[in-house]
């Protein structure tokens, strides 16, 4: 029997981090810019490119403004956590490594129905796609498993394995809880007990209101344009001779900001269908330029 502490929300995170550290991953911290998914962290999006081996794992908050439900829906959040693993090149035993990580959480594969169900991943804004599965645990999706084929429109060579655990889903399953806000966060009994709702319910309510009602769309549009301009300036205006090289990582930060601003505009409902496609195209162009700059600078001055 697992102790309560180890099935707590933070206990699951610690167990997964420990497991992936043992597989030779560097354990990173969340990236400090709003992103829609762990894939956008430069440790995945940029490091998936180029020939260098790379193994990393980290928790990443995912901000999805349109998914907010004012704290009233037991399953939907505008801010939730993913635990992201990137293994490059994709090891031949990727699936076994993943299944062993479930075992490390106390999930016995011989007692549960675990399935790899076709789910090909793509991110239009990142210009990325891969083939893989969603992993079902007794009929519920708990992870995404992808073999990256392209990022920023560039072929991944070698191909990487990307694993994404939906931490709240997994914790709800492990704890047998029906409402995300009832999750045991810290595994402490009695007065010191902290639930997911204690930590995040107010944030869900306030950010839902901000995302859907209050965010100033004129400011968002302006900030989007600023981020786009800054990103382009950093990837285009480089002058190697004047010792002003292109700056892939700062440019990519601006790309991430533009992406999140677009998501906020989308949540505010001020973007028409055609505008939407145009915005996605603009973010993709930034991502592509950042990826190319990243690759071109590999092994260079920095």
């Amino acid at each position, binding site marked *: 029997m697992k102790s309560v502490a180890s099935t707590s929300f933070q206990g699951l995170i610690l167990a997964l981090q420990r497991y992936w550290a043992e597989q030779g991953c560097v354990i990173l911290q969340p990236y400090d810019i709003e992103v829609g998914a762990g894939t956008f962290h430069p440790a995945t999006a940029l490091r998936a490119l180029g020939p260098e081996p790379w193994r990393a794992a980290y928790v990443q908050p995912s901000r999805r403004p349109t998914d907010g439900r004012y704290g009233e829906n037991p399953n939907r959040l505008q801010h939730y956590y993913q635990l992201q693993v990137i293994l490059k*090149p*994709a090891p*031949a035993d*990727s*699936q076994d490594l993943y299944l062993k990580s479930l075992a490390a959480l106390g999930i016995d*594969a*011989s007692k549960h129905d*675990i*399935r*790899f*169900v*076709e789910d*090909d991943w793509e991110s239009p804004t990142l210009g990325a796609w*891969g*083939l*893989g*599965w969603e992993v079902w645990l007794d009929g519920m999706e708990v992870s995404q498993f992808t*073999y990256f*084929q392209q990022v920023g429109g560039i072929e991944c*060579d*070698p*191909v990487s394995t990307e694993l994404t655990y939906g931490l709240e889903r997994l914790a709800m399953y492990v704890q047998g809880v029906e409402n995300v806000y009832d999750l045991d966060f810290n595994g402490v009994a009695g007065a010191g007990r902290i639930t997911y709702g204690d930590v995040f319910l107010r944030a869900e309510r306030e950010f839902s209101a901000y995302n859907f009602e209050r965010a100033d769309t004129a400011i968002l549009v302006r900030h989007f344009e600023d981020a786009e301009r800054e990103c382009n300036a950093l990837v285009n205006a480089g002058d190697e001779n004047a010792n002003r090289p292109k700056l892939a990582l700062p440019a990519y930060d601006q790309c991430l900001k533009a992406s999140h601003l677009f998501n906020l505009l989308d949540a505010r409902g001020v973007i028409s269908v055609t505008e939407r496609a145009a915005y996605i195209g603009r973010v993709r162009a930034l991502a592509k330029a950042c990826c190319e700059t990243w690759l071109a600078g590999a092994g260079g001055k920095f």
Partner: protein
Amino acid sequence: MTGELLLELLSEEIPARMQRRAIEELTRHLDEWLRVHRIPPTEPIRGYVTARRLTAIVNGIPKQLPESNEERRGPRVGAPQQALDGFLRSVGLDSAEQCEVRDTGRGEFYFAVIHRSGRAAVEVLPDLIYSTLMGVEWPKSMRFPAARLSWVRPLTSVLCLFDGQVLPLSLDEVPVGRMTRGHRFLSQGEIAVENAADYLDRLEAAYVILDQDRRRDIIAADLDRLAQNEGLTVKPDPSLLEEVRIRNISLASSPTGRWRRAFCSSPTT
């Protein structure tokens, strides 16, 4: 003298919607290539598919490609040079001197005699199988580090036996040999296989019923038996049974369950 070919492509989970077409493609291409190499099997190819494997079992493949002389009639002597050149190219000869000239009674014609020496089937099978794999078309396929070949998901291993001997097929770093694996969760480790009959037995012992028709029959029989025991009637659903036959299962067993009546209607708005 004929031999038995056993080919199994063990991979990570094949999307359910692609499984049936994949095994059809594999057996069709294999059959075509066997004919191209003039070793057509005397029996139809048997194809099997589970979530993780495509298997072809071929009985009656000639062990020896026959030695042959084929005669091809070319253009009439004195025909335009262009016609003669085209004919020479088509039979793989360099000049008209390599042809015989014969009078057929309706004039003199060039004849080419194409000699094909007899070869052992094992010499052509590896390339033939590689060509077969290259020919399988997936709705979406991917690259993976172990091989240059694109496949629907990474290949785990390839079992490739002709008359019990491992064929020297090369797929970069994908292991090729006489090893397979059983059910992902109910069976552990690798299994060495001697031939097709042994393969089917060992898989079944490792919780994989390979033959999709047998899986369907087991499920259908179970349904009837369970219904009789419980005094129920089975609502026939051939398309569901067909989906179960092919789909993401390699075992067949049927439990009974119940829904509470309250869950048997949809909420109204």
